[in-house]
């Protein structure tokens, strides 16, 4: 393990001070002169035609400055995924129909929140209720209510705008199918024939909320010159800018997203939301800033949740435990709009090959529209769901084959250097080590199936480090200041992960400085270069690399000028603590401040600015109709990512069989994120995911009845509090990734998927029965206990 001066150190967060004093400004805190408040009127019906909207009384209310509805905003479509094959299906305000309870129907901007709300109550909407469908398997049947008419794109789709030269096609959601995925590797028929044991199981994972503490909020200020300034609670400004520019019909260079701290995101604040469009639209209409802050109830009942999957897994193994074949079928209950379904169905497959070497795979996914709120990515985006299904089944296979769960997994793991079917290579692969260390730390062999009332469970997971999605790369700029310190410009978004700190550590390490010497300017689209953001698992690996290269570029310039100034060849120079010195004669040196002056005075005014950039996946790209290395999401072909991160989790639980209540005793997570840029932050991410997993495994669920979210408040939707969080042990195995900045790769999403199924497996181990859905509530556990088929003598793990 390499030793660094700044990277790998437990440096307190650079933004810790402002957050500890309450000075840190979040979008909900920003106030502008003459600001108006926006509120949204929402559909009370899951499926209805809009016959008429009368906003006249609302418009006449004193203090109301603008009212808008779908006939005003028009058919401007947007979506998380907008491709020639799957064109965008959502409009900011419902135009002809509403498709879920809570859909945005009209909006008001007024001088106070009270008046805006009162105005909403004066808007008269006439609906014609239509039959609705809530179950995806019902929705797919012939005769089910049709939720979407044929979509005929009226503009280019996003991917055409990105440069893909393909015609957008109309999309007809026959049988309410929103999208399909089919990925095949090898020959599953043959594979099943050759298997000694085949089992098939069905799993269901519900929607859960991200529950970031800062509510969704947007502030827009449209300048008469046509410039749009926005403050958003988000995860990366590029997708927001793209969609705001497109839906508002303004040039992207005139859309500025300002930096604000973000109060948590977890995947729930990525793509364009109606309220963001509406804030900008109403600001343009009124000529005044407009702020829209959603209530907690609106966030829980109308913002996209995590994805609802029904997963069928059929797996064939040899009697020695080697997995030969796996067939996966997923029904993605997308809700009223498609959102990220094509991506999710692809990810549900592509997260798995890096873990186990299964030669024959068929992966089919189908997105299905239903009249419920939309779903989208949440911390792992399909990883937790598919891990729950596959890893639960693995334990059942282990039981059948009389092989211990740990041993079964170790047998099937890949090896470092493996090339995956899609061409990705596992240059770093810390999973075996992670699994072993987690097992050792948690005393797996001693405890597994030896303790009455208690259970142990394992989960493994993998995650990519960025993929080829807009904006396809990151850049960073670093400029030298007169005092020898540097200002770093990076588009990274700080919503809790510690990226401001990590980026400053990377730059500092490269330049031989401390983080105090790096001033980070981040998250402002006007000041910072383009950036992959922090929602595509590429913050550290991609943007960190861009930052490292920018710092390296500046270093090269410093060395070149120092060589001149000292009259020594650059090879004989080294950098440390803000000085460039002669290696053979360290007393002979120039400071960075000196070199700043040198550049100005002697090199025609050159202030020394470093530029760095990197593409997300090096070997892929497209230009002028040709594609390099890329395939289609729906077929899973082509390169996915340049580096995978891994996590192994082990949970120990105790189940009270009288009440069905679960006490999670300990969660152990061993994670491979390459080098820990900041161990304090890495621990924070692992502890965070373990705590979140408790909620996912035991009680979190957005519950709908006839399309209505019946638990849209924090009184009814619970997240783990401190008293629900068990003992947490985190281990970082750090398998150095040579392609990553100082060996680092993704951190922050992998462990959640592993931890959820570890807890689930532990519960099933404790009760001797299998539960096939999440969350594992006390009632489900008591029910499962009634049908327990407990095998009294599980094989020991020696």
């Amino acid at each position: 393990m390499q030793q660094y001066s700044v990277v790998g150190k437990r440096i307190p967060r650079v933004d810790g001070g402002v957050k500890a004093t309450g000075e840190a400004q979040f979008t909900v805190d920003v106030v502008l002169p003459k600001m108006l408040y926006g509120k949204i009127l929402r559909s009370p019906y899951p499926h209805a035609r809009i016959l008429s909207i009368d906003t006249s009384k609302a418009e006449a209310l004193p203090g109301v400055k603008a009212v808008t509805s779908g006939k005003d905003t028009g058919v401007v479509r947007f979506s998380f995924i907008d491709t020639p094959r799957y064109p965008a299906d959502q409009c900011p305000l419902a135009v002809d129909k509403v498709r879920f309870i809570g859909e945005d129907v009209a909006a008001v901007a007024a001088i106070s929140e009270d008046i805006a709300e009162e105005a909403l109550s004066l808007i008269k909407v006439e609906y014609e209720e239509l039959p609705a469908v809530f179950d995806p398997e019902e929705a797919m049947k012939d005769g089910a209510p049709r939720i979407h008419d044929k979509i005929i794109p009226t503009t280019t789709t996003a991917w055409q705008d990105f440069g893909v030269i393909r015609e957008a096609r109309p999309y007809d959601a026959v049988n309410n199918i929103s999208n399909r995925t089919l990925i095949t590797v090898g020959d599953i028929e043959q594979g099943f024939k050759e298997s000694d044991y085949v089992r098939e199981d069905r799993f269901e994972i519900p929607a859960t909320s991200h529950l970031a503490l800062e509510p969704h909020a947007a502030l827009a200020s449209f300048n008469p010159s046509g410039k749009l300034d926005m403050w958003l609670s988000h995860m990366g400004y590029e997708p927001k800018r793209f969609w705001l520019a497109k839906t508002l019909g303004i040039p992207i260079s005139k859309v500025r997203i300002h930096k604000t701290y973000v109060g948590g995101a977890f995947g729930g604040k990525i793509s364009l939301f109606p309220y963001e469009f509406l804030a900008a639209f109403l600001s343009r209409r009124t000529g005044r800033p407009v702020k829209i802050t959603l209530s907690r109830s609106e966030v829980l009942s109308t913002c996209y949740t995590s994805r609802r999957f029904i997963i069928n897994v059929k797996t064939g193994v040899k009697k020695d435990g080697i997995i030969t074949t796996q067939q996966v079928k997923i029904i993605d209950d997308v809700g009223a709009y498609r959102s990220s379904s094509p991506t999710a169905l692809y990810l549900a497959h592509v997260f798995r090959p890096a873990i186990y070497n299964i030669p024959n795979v068929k992966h089919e996914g189908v997105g299905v529209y239903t009249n419920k709120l939309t779903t989208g990515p949440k911390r792992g985006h399909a990883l937790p769901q598919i891990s729950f299904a596959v890893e639960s089944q693995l334990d059942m296979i282990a039981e059948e084959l009389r092989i211990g769960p740990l041993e079964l997994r170790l047998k099937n793991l890949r090896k470092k250097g493996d090339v995956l079917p899609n061409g990705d290579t596992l240059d770093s692969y810390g999973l075996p080590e992670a699994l072993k260390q987690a097992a050792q730390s948690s005393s797996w062999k001693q405890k597994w199936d030896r303790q009455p009332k208690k259970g142990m469970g394992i989960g493994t997971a993998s995650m990519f480090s960025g993929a080829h999605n807009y904006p396809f790369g990151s850049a960073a700029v670093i400029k030298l200041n007169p005092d020898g310190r540097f200002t770093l410009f990076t588009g990274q978004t700080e919503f809790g992960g510690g990226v401001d700190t990590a980026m400053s550590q990377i730059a500092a390490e490269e330049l031989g400085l401390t983080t105090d010497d790096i001033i980070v300017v981040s998250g402002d689209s006007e000041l910072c270069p383009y950036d992959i953001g922090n929602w595509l698992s590429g913050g550290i690996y991609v943007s960190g690399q861009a930052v490292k290269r920018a710092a390296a570029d500046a270093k090269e310039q410093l060395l070149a000028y120092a060589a001149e100034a000292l009259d020594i060849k650059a090879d004989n120079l080294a950098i440390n603590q803000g000085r460039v010195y002669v290696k053979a004669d360290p007393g002979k040196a120039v400071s960075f401040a000196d070199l700043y002056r040198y550049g100005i005075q002697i090199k025609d005014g050159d202030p020394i600015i470093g530029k760095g950039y990197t593409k997300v996946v090096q070997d892929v790209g497209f230009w002028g109709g040709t594609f390099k290395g890329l395939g289609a999401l729906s077929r899973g072909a082509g390169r996915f990512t340049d580096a995978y991160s891994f996590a192994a989790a082990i949970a120990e639980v105790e189940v009270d069989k009288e009440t069905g209540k679960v006490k999670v005793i300990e969660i152990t997570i061993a994670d491979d994120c390459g080098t820990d840029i900041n161990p304090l932050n890495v621990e924070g991410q692992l502890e965070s995911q373990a705590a979140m997993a408790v909620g996912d495994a035991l009680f979190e669920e957005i519950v709908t009845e006839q399309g209505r979210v019946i638990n849209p408040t924090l009184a009814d939707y619970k997240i783990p509090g401190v008293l629900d969080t068990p003992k947490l042990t985190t281990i970082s195995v750090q398998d150095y990734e040579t392609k990553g900045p100082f060996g680092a790769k993704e951190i922050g999403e992998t462990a959640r998927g592993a931890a959820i199924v570890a807890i689930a497996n532990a519960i099933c181990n404790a009760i001797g029965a299998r539960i096939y859905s999440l969350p594992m509530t006390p009632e489900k556990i008591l029910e499962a206990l009634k049908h327990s088929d407990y095998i009294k003598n599980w094989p020991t793990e020696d």
Partner: protein
Amino acid sequence: MKQLITLRVNGESYEVAVEPQTILLDVLREKLGLNGTKKACDFGNCGSCTVLMDGKPVLSCLILAMDAQGKDILTIEGMAKDGQLHPLQRAFIDHGAIQCGFCTPGMLLSAKALLDENPQPIAEEVRQAISGNLCRCTGYHKIVEAILDVAQSSQRKG
């Protein structure tokens, strides 16, 4: 009907015009510019709006501004003194107990109230004291660690 009331916040007196239904949290954020206290649920379930009233943690989203008259209110902005961070603030930063920062003001004030009353709590008492402050980011471990560290440091100083 608007009424002029006086509120004492962080040792300073403020005169504000409020209506009966005006909530203390909104007064702090919108009229006094004290944005550190946060609104995350508005129904008293998350603790992000926690302030100290006469030294005790309370939920400002469920207090009428009119009812806050005559009380000493402490918000996060009043926790540092003369530019010096409170030991708890310092500990939170050093221990990595802050991630997105949204729960942090309420969390710090609940911790401060605990240590003011019970300078050397055991771990279970710390957890009980912050049981009404939700955090989605940290998993609470480093928060509990930071608070215990301050408690143990004050014991060492004795």
